[in-house]
């Protein structure tokens, strides 16, 4: 399933989606970026509440398909600008990480 399809199906709000046709496979959940860097896999949907600009760098490095911000976390505009520029898809979910992951179940 693509990021665009997944986001629509799960009812996520688009923050920025420069690459809606990326395929999603698997999911990683974590907020400590040093752990995410070493564990998230290419193509994953990454669920986090971290809003620092370094999420864009970590998403690039790990090549995750999409960042899903749980609990309605809001990003600073400067972070959205960096993510858009780097081709990072970001969507927002208004429920906590577990419920967000449950929505992904069956899709990835």
């Amino acid at each position, binding site marked *: 399933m693509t990021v665009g399809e997944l986001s629509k199906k799960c009812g996520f709000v688009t923050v920025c989606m420069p690459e809606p046709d990326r395929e999603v496979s698997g999911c990683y959940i974590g907020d*400590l*970026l040093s752990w995410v860097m070493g564990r998230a896999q290419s193509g994953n949907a990454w669920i986090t509440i971290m*809003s620092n600009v370094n999420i864009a760098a970590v998403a690039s490095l790990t090549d995750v398909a999409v960042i899903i911000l749980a609990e309605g976390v809001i990003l600073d505009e400067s972070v959205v600008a960096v993510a858009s520029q780097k081709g990072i898809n970001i969507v927002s979910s208004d429920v906590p990480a577990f419920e967000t992951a449950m929505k992904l179940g069956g899709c990835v």
Partner: protein
Amino acid sequence: MKKYYYDFHIHSCLSPCADDDMTPNNIAGTAVLAGLEAVALTDHNSSKNCPAFFEAAKKYGLIPIAGMELTTAEDIHIVCLFPELDGAMKFDAYVSKYRMKIPNRTDIFGEQLIMNGEDEIIGREDYFLPAASEITVDDAPNIVSLFGGICYPAHVDREANGIIATLGTFPENTGFRNAEFYDHGKEEEYLRKYSALAEKRLLVSSDAHNLWNIRDKSAFLEIDDEPYSSDRVRRQILRLLGAEI
């Protein structure tokens, strides 16, 4: 120029995780025995024991620095230091508006005691102090400077609440001019891995939560201290830490 042995990261009995015998006088006395000359009190998200620490330090001949270990919105620990006690107390009042109001469970986390200069309990902090504030790591340097202070990431070499573990690297283009190490000797390894550290003054402090963790003198700064006064040395230390390396 004279060497001043320092420790800029010590917790008192106001921090729930610190021993209750980390009283202002016990800290000042132990620091002097350890050969330290300038010591900052940096409780989690509060400076409320700094007035008592200043009184105690005067009795023991120690140069006190008012500080705080701020927990940012990202759960990163930041050491904040102020040239004047008054600035720290105003910052304390500011931070108290941006803290999470979670009641402290003394049975789990420990007491949060506010003391006077005689080590008598004059109050207790009701809310759990180390919880994250709403202040982001990016905003912290500017906000602290509004109160005359400087700040820098604490224990960058530790996973728990260290900036590198939390953000995955030491970010470029921050307002920080210093970085604190917990372990003396790790600096070389970190400088090789994280290029942004090359522009920082690397400090080492104990993050002591009990008296026996206050280390013997080791790290020092060279300060122009003439004509000498305790206040002057403190201000000179802050001026040095606020300058680019």
